[in-house]
Each structure stands twice: as C-alpha cells, then as structure tokens.
C-alpha cells in the first residue's frame, strides 16, 4: 500500500482485471511483496493471530445465532445448542473460549506495543485505532456474556449498566434507556443480541483501517529504528507469512487445549443457573480479562469516582502517544523504562488478582498486624489501591518524566547493522 507497486499481472485475465479492479495488486503489495523489518520477533505474530481470532469468533458466532433464541427461551436454547445441535457443544466452547483467547492475544499485542514504543510517531493513529478496537472488543465481549442468560450474565449486565447510573442527573434516565425498562430484562437481552452481532463487523472495519495505517507507517521493529535501506527489510511472503502461520499453529494448539480439555476453566459455574432477578450469586466477578478494571472500580470508595477511574484507565492508553516524551522508541535501549514496564505488568496482574477476590478478604490469611486506623491494609481492596496507583502513575508520571530524565543506551544506526555484527544486547 505504500511505495511503488511491483505487481505484474501475468495472464490476460489478470491484466484485464488489474485495469478494472486491482484486487490482486492490493493483495500482492500488502501481503506478498510488502517489506517487513528483517528483525521482527515472535511478539510481532500476534497481529495475525488476532485476525484469526476475529475470524473464528465471527464464524462460530454466526453459527450460534442460527440456533440461539433471544427472549424467554434464551437459557434453554443454549442448553439445546450444548445437547442437541450437531457439534453445538464444540462450536459454543470455541466461541466462549475464543473470547478469552482473543483477549490473551490482544494483551500480548498491546504490551508488545508498549514495550517497543509502537505508539510513537509516526504510528499514533495506528495506536488510536487499536485502542478503538480494544474498546469495541470489550463491549462485544460484555454483551456476548449476557446472552446465555445465566446468573452471571444477568448480574454482570445489571452491574455494568448500573455504572452509567453514577453519572449525575442523566444517570437514571440513561440506565432506563439502556435497559428498555426498569431493570435488566428481555428487552435488554434483545438489544444486546443485536449489538453483539453488529459490533464484530465494526471491529472488522476498524481492523482494515488499522492495517491500512500500519502499511502506511510501516511496521515498528524491536530496535525501534525505522528501516533505511533494502538491507533492513525482507518480503512479507514467505518470511512473515510462514512465521505468522507457525505462531498461529502454536496458538491454535493452546486454544484447542482449552476447548477440548478445559472448556469451563475460564467460566463460572453460576452461569449454568438461569438468570434470577431476585437472587444475586454470593460472589459475582467478571470474566478474567476485565478483572484489572473491575479492581480499579472497587478500589475507590466513591461510586462516580470509581467509574471515572475505570474509564480513565482506558483513556490513559489513548493519551499514551502524547504522554511519552522519550526520543527512543524501543525499551531495549531504555534500561530504566524496562524496569518500570515490568512493574507495570506486575501491577496489572495484581489488579486482576484483586478483582477476582472479595474486597475485604485478607491477602495473607490470618495476618492482622496491618491495621491502620479503621482499615485493614492486609486486604485486597488496599492491595488494589496500591496497584491502581501505580497503574496511573506509570502513564501520567513515570512515562512523561522518564523520557526527559533517563539516559538511554546507544541506538543502532540501522536494523541491519546490529543484526549483522551481532552485538551483545
């Protein structure tokens, strides 16, 4: 898509087509002859893996929609899919676990971008589009989780839609509008089904823009140094296609392990109980991929501030290209940044861990020495406060200041230079 096209139609038919609708040329220039940095490592295969995940979710989702009933029969229709529809159990398990696989891949993809500075100029728009895809993914996953109409579906929907109730003045009317009633009910389920079907196609649309932006700016690479000559790049095919294909195969093996051996490991048993608006399950938690944000929400005692903090955590990602002041892209040459980055990952994992536990539970059971005034510091709510503080500090304080104060290591002249001389990293 960028630079001169090298496509040469070989037959009369392809020459005829090329003058009218150059699809083959587009594919050739984007996925065959497209120059990719020669030093891309396996962290760069997750873009392809994510496309695969989107494809799998769309195909299995369309199939599930052939058998799913929205409305009072929703819960029973999911059991019908599991028991009666030919291979329905498999297709549903692929779709349910596929959501988790999608988020595993997207988190690796995002952390790779963070580490190697892939959001920095000239890739800000590429990064923003990625953030939009992530938001759409979260909305899609949330609404999809409501569709089986189990206890977790129902109470998850109720809690998340009630977040909007935190807004002053408009809160209440907005939640009633979202619900189509005075509580989460079949009208809510119906619209969630409609939107759950729509959003993946919107994701696909933004993915096309994302890839377009990628091919205009060119891929970043582990050195963060832009390709300068032909020696710095190799052709997309076979180098990237084969490498992506191999990574996809490994990823599919992990995916299959979950689908066939641990299909409910990432779910909650409560969701096999039909939704009951009169009884909340004793312990309600979102799916694992939302846990860090859920922990941030609960870390703050005020409802509105908690909601704002949760959305703020995602807003930080959008602002990142303008928060980072470093002139060096890749953290390979930023030893201090590397350290803070590792702590950031730990903070995210800790937040996820906190999100899965009741706020007042003790982190270290039986230890009561950490009493500060009225609060027990040895509790998940306090641990999540510390981790949430670091999360925000990483984006709003550490990243802007570090870029101005650190002394980065020497950055190679070009991609090919270190690759050929093999310096110690």
């Amino acid at each position: 898509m960028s630079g001169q096209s090298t496509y040469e139609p070989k037959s009369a038919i392809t020459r005829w087509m090329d003058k009218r609708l150059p699809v083959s040329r587009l594919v050739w220039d984007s996925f065959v002859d497209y120059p990719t940095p020669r030093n891309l490592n396996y962290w760069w295969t997750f873009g392809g893996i994510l496309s695969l995940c989107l494809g799998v979710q769309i195909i299995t989702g369309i199939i599930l929609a052939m058998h799913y009933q929205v409305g009072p029969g929703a819960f029973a229709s999911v059991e019908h899919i599991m028991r009666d529809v030919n291979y329905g159990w498999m297709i549903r398990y692929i779709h349910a676990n596929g959501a988790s696989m999608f988020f595993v891949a997207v988190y690796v993809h995002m952390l790779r971008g963070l580490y190697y500075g892939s959001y920095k100029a000239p890739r800000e728009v590429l990064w923003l589009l990625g953030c939009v895809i992530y938001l759409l993914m979260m909305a899609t996953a949330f609404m999809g989780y409501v569709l089986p109409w189990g206890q977790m579906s129902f109470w998850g929907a109720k809690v998340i839609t009630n977040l909007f109730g935190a807004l002053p003045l408009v809160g209440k009317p907005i939640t009633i509008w979202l619900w189509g009633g005075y509580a989460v009910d079949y009208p809510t389920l119906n619209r969630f089904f409609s939107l759950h079907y729509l959003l993946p196609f919107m994701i696909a649309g933004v993915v096309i823009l994302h890839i377009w932006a990628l091919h205009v700016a060119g891929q970043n690479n582990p050195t963060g140094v832009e390709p300068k000559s032909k020696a710095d790049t190799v052709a997309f095919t076979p180098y990237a296609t084969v490498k992506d294909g191999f990574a996809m195969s490994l990823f599919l093996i992990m995916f299959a392990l979950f689908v066939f051996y641990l299909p409910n490991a990432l779910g909650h048993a409560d969701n096999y109980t039909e939704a009951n608006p009169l009884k909340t399950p004793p312990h309600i938690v979102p799916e694992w991929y939302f846990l860090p944000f859920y922990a941030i929400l609960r870390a703050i005692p005020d409802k509105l501030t908690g909601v704002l903090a949760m959305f703020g955590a995602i807003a930080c990602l959008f602002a990142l290209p303008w928060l980072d002041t470093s002139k060096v892209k890749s953290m390979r040459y930023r030893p201090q940044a590397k350290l803070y980055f590792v702590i950031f990952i730990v903070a995210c994992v800790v937040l996820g861990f906190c999100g899965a536990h009741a706020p007042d539970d003790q982190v270290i059971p039986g230890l009561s020495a950490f009493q500060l005034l009225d609060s027990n510091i040895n509790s998940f709510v306090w641990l999540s406060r510390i981790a949430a503080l670091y999360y925000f500090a990483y984006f709003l304080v550490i990243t802007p200041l570090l870029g101005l104060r650190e002394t980065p290591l020497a950055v190679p002249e070009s991609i090919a230079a270190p690759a050929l001389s093999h310096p110690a990293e």
Partner: protein
Amino acid sequence: MAETAADATASTPGQDPNRRDFIYIAAVAAAAGGAAAVAWPFIDQMNPAADTLAAASVEYDLSKVEPGAQVVITWRKQPLFIRNRTAAQIASAVKDDHADMKDPATDASRVKPGHAQWLILLGSCTHLGCVPTEGGGKYGGWLCPCHGSVYDTAGRIRSGPAPKNLELPEYTFLTDTKVKIG
C-alpha cells in the same frame, strides 16, 4: 542474508522434488486436512438436531377416522393425510391400475397388505409443496389449489404439472387400528 534467502528458495539441481518442495506440500496438505476436519462440524450443525430427530415418529389411533373421511395430522411439521377409503373409492382406484399415468403404480402398492382401506400419504403436492384439497378433481382424490394437479383416490398423479404420486411415508401397523409413522 539476501543471498542465503535466494539459495534457500531456489530448487536444488538434481533433486526433483527437493526437500523444500516436500515441506511445502506436507505443510499445505496438513493445513488442508485440518481445514476439512474443521469444516465438517460447521456444516453438520445445520442438519436436524437431536431433539428434532427424536420427534420424528408419531403413533396414531385409526379408529378415530370415520369411513370415507380424511384426517390431517402433522408429522415432521408437515401435513399427513390419513384417509379411510370406502369400497367404491378403492374399486375406482383399482380399476385404473393400468391406465396411462405419469408415475404408474398399482393401488395395492400404495397401501399395506390387508389394510387397503387405509391410505396414508404426505399431504404435500409433488409439484411445489402446496397442500392438496381432499375430494377435488374429477377422480375424487385430491386437487392442488396452487397449480391444479389432480390426484386419484390412491393419491396417484393423473393430470397437472406435478411429476410424482403423493409420497408415502414409512409406517407400520402396530395393531389393526394403530399405526406408527416414521
């Protein structure tokens, strides 16, 4: 690197097929096999589900059908004609056994031996699937309201666009008055 890449993709002279060709073929064959294995469940899911198959047979008590009358029941979500034929209707059907017909069949082949009075047919015109009206047409069998196909009292097509006789479902007599269809 550029040179090694060129070496790697060029075929080794004197070896045909060479090892790289073998890897390509093996990889593509494995991928194609995998794709086919995955494709089948995704196709088969559209076939009737277990609950649909479980509801595929019905039992019916024939004593509820008066002589000369027809009862329409649903079987596999389709109308099923159960007709208690009078002696005159059977006789007129047998008389035409060797008449010129599109889909020749004897009256005896349309019923179970010893149960000539019971004619059990799928109530779906073999033209395009409309439900024929009982007693219509000049043979006193059925007349299809959609495109005028005429069936006789054995459910054989006698005139009109339909190509075949009314279809016989699979059924057995459990007792003299009870049938199991499907």
